[in-house]
């Protein structure tokens, strides 16, 4: 099956919007993706048909909402091929998921002088939480630098590993450069050295088929809103045995088995890590997004996006003074670039006026910008509802930008 992009665009109502009277060209998909009608409809269905706090309710609507939520967990389990549905923990997003693992992992495993290896390619969300827990435990965060192309090198990682290394944190796909990291090999190296590993999949699950058992990763996190689902919901996958060892992250309702002032016992997985009323409405709609992309097929999406990426890079390279930042061997559909003599903010402002939405600045990856000695980049990130015609509009827009600043 190939992608029928015109048909797909019909599923996303926002793509019909006009911006300053011009058709929207949405190239900010790495920041968040747009939502298909089925996801929007599902949110409305929850709130109009069976909105009710889940778990432990005795009435019809609570049972219905609970069943739908737990069904969503099963759908997500299958989507990433986790062994058990209770290895899927819901959090607010990838960021909260990393904070959860960082906090609980540090409580259980991290001691003074221990080391956590964090790649230089990380979003601040997969770097700051580790720095925070390291500071609390007097442990150290060790930088795994990337090379000029934006690739991480496995030999470099091997040199950084010491008997004190307790965990490696790395993304599957870089949000600012698009690098697809060799996570399978990285996980193997980690496990050969008895080191646990967390993969930030926020930029990966929408582009690459992920099988957590085949990868053998210990923890894998991602957000719904970057894979066509609602904001405010995300997933932490963890291996049962590892999650069982970890103490809870937050206390409250749901996460307890029994409570007295003398003693509290915690609930079993996944509820141990899901304090408070869960975000069931977004969870239920999230499952619709997963069903939607699964029906199209992640492999089909990947193939189409690879075409967009190749077309976009070829086209953009012909613009005078344009330099693509991040030329990794394998890339997701992200083009980060700068134009000689122009600030990314200036480029983004003018493109915006033409109805073209890109992201500019550091993309929450200041270490990457420091590494390249730049203040930021313009980033165009494509989804499977984007078209080559839209890339042509970006190309023409950029020529106009160059002309205006000349």
């Amino acid at each position, binding site marked *: 099956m190939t992608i029928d992009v015109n048909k797909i665009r019909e599923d996303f109502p926002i793509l019909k919007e006009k911006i300053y009277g011009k058709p929207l060209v949405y190239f900010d998909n790495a920041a968040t993706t747009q939502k298909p009608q089925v996801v929007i409809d599902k949110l409305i269905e929850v709130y109009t048909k069976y909105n009710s706090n889940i778990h432990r309710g005795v009435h019809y609507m609570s049972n219905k909402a609970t069943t739908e939520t737990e069904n969503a967990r099963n759908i997500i389990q299958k989507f990433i091929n986790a062994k058990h549905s209770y290895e899927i923990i819901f959090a607010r997003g990838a960021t909260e998921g990393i904070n959860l693992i960082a906090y609980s992992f540090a409580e259980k495993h991290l001691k003074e002088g221990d080391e956590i290896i964090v790649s230089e390619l990380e979003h601040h969300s997969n770097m700051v939480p580790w720095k925070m827990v390291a500071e609390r435990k007097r442990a150290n965060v060790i930088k795994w630098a990337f090379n000029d192309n934006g690739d991480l090198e496995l030999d470099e990682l091997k040199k950084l590993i010491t008997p004190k290394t307790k965990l490696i944190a790395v993304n599957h796909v870089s949000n600012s450069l698009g690098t697809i990291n060799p996570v399978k090999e990285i996980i193997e190296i980690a496990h050969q050295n008895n080191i646990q590993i967390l993969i930030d999949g926020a930029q990966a699950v929408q582009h690459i088929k992920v099988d957590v058992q085949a990868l053998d990763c210990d923890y894998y996190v991602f957000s719904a809103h970057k894979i066509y689902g609602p904001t405010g919901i995300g997933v932490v996958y963890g291996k049962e045995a590892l999650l069982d060892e970890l103490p809870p992250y937050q206390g409250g309702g749901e996460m307890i088995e029994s409570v007295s002032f003398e003693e509290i016992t915690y609930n079993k997985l996944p509820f141990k890590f899901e304090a408070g009323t869960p975000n069931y409405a977004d969870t239920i709609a999230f499952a619709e997004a997963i069903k939607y992309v699964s029906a199209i097929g992640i492999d089909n999406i990947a193939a189409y996006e690879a075409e967009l990426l190749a077309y976009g890079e070829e086209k953009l390279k012909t613009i005078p003074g344009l330099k693509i930042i991040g030329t990794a061997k394998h890339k997701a559909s992200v083009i980060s670039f700068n134009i000689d003599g122009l*600030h990314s903010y*200036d480029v983004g*402002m003018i493109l915006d*006026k033409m109805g073209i939405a890109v992201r500019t600045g550091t993309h929450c990856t200041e270490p990457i910008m420091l590494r390249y000695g730049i203040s930021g980049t313009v980033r165009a990130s494509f989804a499977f509802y984007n078209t080559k015609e839209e890339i042509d509009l970006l190309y023409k827009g950029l020529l106009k930008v160059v002309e*205006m600043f000349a």
Partner: protein
Amino acid sequence: MSELNKRQDEIVEEFSVFDDWMDRYSFLIDLGKDVPEIAEELKTDRTLIKGCQSRVWLNADLVDGLVEFQADSDAIITKGIIALLVRVVSGLSPKEIMEGDLYFIDKIGLKENLSPTRSNGLVSMIKQIKMYALAYYTKMNS
């Protein structure tokens, strides 16, 4: 009419000839290229106003009871708007700057540049202009 408002109305008048956004931004870009840059030695952490994306430097001196501003930015559009801001407030008394309402940015159709999400340092720059005025006002009256 105050000198501050007179200057603002002049700018509004100048912008009224532009029909569309492209003319307005082209004008800003030209201004951004022309603006007398702040002396390199004044581009320090003290004068830096950190925005998320474009950086803005702002310096103010009190000369004969009036505040003289110099400013710069690494982004040209931001620099163009800065040039307009400096033109409006520079050389006025601290009191007039403190009490003045900077309405011209909205009137010339550049309001989106002042949205906090733009993170271009302009909102902070306006605050900093007022802070300098307040500081010099306090100094003169103490």
